[in-house]
């Protein structure tokens, strides 16, 4: 037997006289329809009941950090795309803001406003996929396709500004790769007008469906204290009722100039911090993102989108910096150590999904096998970011 597939001993030693039936070790993944990528979790089950679980990651370890210190600063941006490939714009943004902070670059205002638009649109796209795949995890396939239909419209918008459907590499150090074409902002406005009523449709289709509520409520309850201790951020943390959002608490770009709410879980249909709360935070965040986009669209000045100081080869001063932004999945932090050369000494990506996923074992005790899938889905991780 390969050492890899031998699961670590999870079982409690059985007491004499224990008449329980045999327990089973079950490998969910790395190739399984609902592990959202190549994620493996070894669960120990007693019939349908999950007694313990042990997540195994690394099946998509693409050596981002080694590459990041082997190529120069500008060439790292395309690799950040591939971390959280559902929210590439936000990843670019996080990395670029970090390096810009280290270098003290000033970004033209048009670039800042456009960055906000693409980041929020990408948040919507990412949450749409989370919504769709969560429906699929619960067994409803139709919401997934409806979500994809609307996500295509966002991808089209991104395609117009950068020519790619995924992995945009649009946000660059010092500004943006290219200015948006003239009527692009109208198209964004049209999309927002089209999309906002759709969210009600999603609510009717899935969020308030009786079976779905039965499946998602009271499952995988994550108390706020546990979430904080395990470093959960983003919708996973907010689903537990903690109002923590970098956009509000440590505003970057011009998020302090726009009005928006931070939706948190309220335990409406079940316990606070259950799967439904986490799911619903995402659905509500889509609404908030639309609101932000609307406000940003009102004031996008003309002008350049690239700072003139941004050179072909960047040599940030010696020092180290940690900076974070609010990704769709939580706080995305970059820790950059520079020694004044054109390549970084170390670029560490503190990915939100990595921390969110580590809490899985804590909240999956005693649930049923079907709930396990729902819990995995509600964490909404992207393996590219977990394994890097």
């Amino acid at each position, binding site marked *: 037997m390969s050492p890899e597939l031998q699961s*670590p001993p999870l079982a409690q030693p059985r007491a004499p006289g224990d008449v329980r039936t045999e327990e089973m070790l079950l490998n969910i993944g790395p190739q399984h329809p609902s592990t959202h990528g190549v994620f493996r979790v070894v669960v120990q089950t007693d019939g349908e009941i999950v007694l313990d679980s042990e997540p195994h990651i690394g099946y998509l370890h693409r050596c981002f950090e080694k590459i990041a210190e082997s190529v120069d600063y500008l060439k790292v941006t395309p690799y950040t795309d591939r971390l959280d490939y559902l929210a590439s714009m936000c990843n670019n943004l996080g990395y670029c803001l970090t390096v810009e902070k280290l270098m003290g670059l000033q970004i033209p205002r048009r670039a800042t406003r456009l960055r906000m638009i693409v980041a929020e649109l990408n948040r919507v796209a990412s949450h749409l996929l989370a919504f769709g795949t969560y429906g699929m995890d619960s067994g409803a396939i139709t919401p997934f396709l409806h979500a994809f239909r609307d996500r295509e419209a966002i991808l089209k918008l991104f395609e117009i500004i950068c020519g790619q459907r995924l992995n945009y590499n649009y946000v660059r150090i010092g500004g943006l790769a290219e200015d948006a074409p003239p009527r692009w902002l109208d198209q964004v406005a049209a999309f927002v007008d089209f999309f906002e009523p759709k969210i009600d449709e999603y609510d009717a289709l899935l969020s308030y469906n009786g079976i779905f509520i039965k499946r998602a409520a009271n499952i995988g309850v994550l108390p706020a204290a546990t979430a904080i201790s395990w470093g959960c951020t983003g919708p996973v943390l907010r689903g537990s009722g903690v109002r923590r959002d970098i956009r509000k608490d440590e505003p970057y770009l011009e998020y302090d100039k726009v009005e928006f709410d931070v939706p948190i879980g309220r335990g409406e249909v079940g316990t606070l911090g259950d799967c439904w709360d986490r799911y619903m935070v995402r659905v509500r965040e889509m609404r908030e993102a639309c609101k932000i986009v609307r406000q940003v669209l009102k004031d996008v000045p003309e002008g350049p989108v690239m700072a003139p100081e941004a050179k072909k080869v960047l040599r940030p001063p010696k020092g*180290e910096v940690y900076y974070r932004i609010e990704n769709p999945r939580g706080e995305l932090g970059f820790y950059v150590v520079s020694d004044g050369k054109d390549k970084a000494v170390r670029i560490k990506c503190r990915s939100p999904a990595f921390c969110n996923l580590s809490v899985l074992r804590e909240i999956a005790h005693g649930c049923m096998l079907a709930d396990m899938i729902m819990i995995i889905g509600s964490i909404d991780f992207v393996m590219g970011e977990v394994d890097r």
Partner: protein
Amino acid sequence: MTRAEAHAAILAKFPDAIVRDGREGKEAGDPYLVVKAERLHDVVKWMKEDPGMRFEVLQCLSGVDYGKDLASVYHLDSWTNKVTVCLRVELPREKPEVASITDLYGAADWHEREAYDLLGITYTGHPKLVRILCAEDWVGYPLRKDYVFPKEYHGIKNDL
């Protein structure tokens, strides 16, 4: 609380544990504190539990190879006081060993495993310090500067 105040409080409480206040006015970016490896756990424990500090979140834990020696860098967050503090532990390349803080922060579990996996830093007291990202029988610590890329792995060629 500002970062400077937090630094001052830590320096006042653990004058012997802090090797130096990083940056020292010369470097760009964030300031940091360099902590002695054997005192790290005490410092972090105090920072977490002291009612005036309340650093309840381990935001990030990174292993760094500076070329000469290794380091384990901790970004601790206090959401109540809205401040982030960066602690750095410098570790000798031959025997990089530091106490684990998994008993204080759950988040440290995977982060420490990752630093062990990629840089070979040993966290004593970690419940299960095994490779997390690379395959379990992987050779070497990839993020070290002197890492040699494998020619092949289980019959699959790597240098084409």
